[in-house]
């Protein structure tokens, strides 16, 4: 690796490690959410950027992960790792069963199909109060205990969440760079030609949907152990939409872009809320501005800007 990149990486690592100790608690808390949203957003990014699929159902899998963790630890007294696993297995199974029929749809119809899934799941989370606690939710979810080290403060949980997020980013990067990644991009660019080259579109789309659900569930479990309390309002269609915004804002084909998108949807509303009631309108405007002015997301726009500056610099020098 070239020494300059190595240097930047080292600086980044130091900054990353120091941040939770120097920022106020509520910022550390937001950074934990950024990590959680990065995990959930990675799945959506894979579908959107590499398969051209709009998934508006991520809150469903996020909810499944969160409820699985809550139910297993609070109601059944099982270790937290069981909650993570149960959530993952249920989410992946559901994604497979639902994905097979609805992934036959394309474009807007598929997006609406996933939206319907999110709406149904959100209604069921509300109705099945024997399982989810309904609007009252489930409280008292224990903090994670890592070999005797209790992750009970945002500044501690931060490290755990971000290590998981980096691992998920590495896994997503692996997928993009793999044979499967090639087939995904081929399918996105021309499904007709991809089929002629023996790429099984249906199976591939289903598999990525399952991976997306796994990320969603993982993020949900992380959320449950951070918030200690889960209730239906965290898993509504609104949440699905804000998850979709992550890759749209950051840049759907870029993995670091997911982090940028996650920062945008966690920090911006918080910063704007200081301005009073107008904050939702401002957030909406900022969103529209990014989508209209930077169709490739913030990371794509940054890349373009850098290319333009390099060109200008080259022209002068």
């Amino acid at each position: 690796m070239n020494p300059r990149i190595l240097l930047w990486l080292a600086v980044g690592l130091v900054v990353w490690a120091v941040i939770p100790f120097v920022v106020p608690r509520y910022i550390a808390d937001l950074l934990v959410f950024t990590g959680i949203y990065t995990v959930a957003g990675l799945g959506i990014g894979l579908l959107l950027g590499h398969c051209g699929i709009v998934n508006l159902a991520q809150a469903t899998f996020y909810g499944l992960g969160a409820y699985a963790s809550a139910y297993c630890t609070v109601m059944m007294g099982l270790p937290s790792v069981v909650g993570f696993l149960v959530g993952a297995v249920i989410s992946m199974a559901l994604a497979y069963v639902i994905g097979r029929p609805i992934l036959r749809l394309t474009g807007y119809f598929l997006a609406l199909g996933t939206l319907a899934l999110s709406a149904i799941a959100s209604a069921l989370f509300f109705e099945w109060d024997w399982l989810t606690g309904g609007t009252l939710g489930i409280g008292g979810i224990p903090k994670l205990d890592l070999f005797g080290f209790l992750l009970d403060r945002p500044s501690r949980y931060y490290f755990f969440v971000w290590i998981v997020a980096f691992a998920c980013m590495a896994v997503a990067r692996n997928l993009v760079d793999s044979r499967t990644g090639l087939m995904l991009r081929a399918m996105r660019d021309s499904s007709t030609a991809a089929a002629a080259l023996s790429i099984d579109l249906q199976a591939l789309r289903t598999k990525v949907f399952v991976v997306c659900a796994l990320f969603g569930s993982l993020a949900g479990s992380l959320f449950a152990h951070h918030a200690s309390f889960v209730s239906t309002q965290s898993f509504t269609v609104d949440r699905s939409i804000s998850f979709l915004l992550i890759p749209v804002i950051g840049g759907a084909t870029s993995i670091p872009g997911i982090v940028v998108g996650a920062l945008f949807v966690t920090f911006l509303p918080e910063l704007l809320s200081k301005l009073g009631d107008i904050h939702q309108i401002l957030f909406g405007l900022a969103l529209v501005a990014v989508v209209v002015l930077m169709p490739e997301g913030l990371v794509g726009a940054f890349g373009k800007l850098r290319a333009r500056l390099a060109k200008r610099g080259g022209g002068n020098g």
Partner: protein
Amino acid sequence: MAEPLLAMKEVGHSFGGLSVLRSVTFEVPEGGIIGLIGPNGSGKTTLFNIVSGYIRPLAGTVLYRGSVLGRDSIQQRGLQGLVRTFQTPQVFEQMTVLENVMVGCTKLTRTTMLQDLLRTPAARGQMREIRERAEAACERFRLGALRDLPAASLTAGQRRILEIARAVVGEPRLLLLDEPSSGLNVQEIDDLRDWIVRLNEEGITVLLVSHDMGLMTVARTVHTLYFGEIIASGDMAAIQRDPRVREVYLGV
């Protein structure tokens, strides 16, 4: 006589009551170059879509290596060595030339999703193999200098060659070329003809659809389709002499 690689038996098809293919029967012998000509709307592309699996025929059977290609999907046909190109070249525009060719290699190897997610040694090994094959194919098809460019930036002729390279790298037995000379200049058509001959000499059977009479001279047998029926068959010289073909196709 040896079994033909592909045999069409009384294949018929219609769209909304309009009959586009009527009892079409012909064979493609292993190692041959067979041509299909016919004016626009004569049913050539429909026939192609039937062979490659995009359309299921309403009548008749298609035999490939002696067995019926009934419900086999496009993908299954591809895995059996039957690969097509498209009238308008279908390249993966946002991917580089090399990546396009790499996609053509993916069917030769198998990795599971889990192996790809975890980047296991097996997955890396297969990816290396795919890349090496694709690099060799790029050199061979003189796409080496273009290999890192996005396919969207290629000219029509380059796209055509890329599409053929991408199909050939997957080791087809039967290559179906749909109007490969459309949009190409004279020089490019000459190159294309050379490629068809060379690939055929290497053992790839070719079924060629075109209304380019010049390109058609590579075919050993040419079938002429007219309103969904084969009205003449033979080598190109015989076809050009055939009075019916002259009447309906050449307009003389």
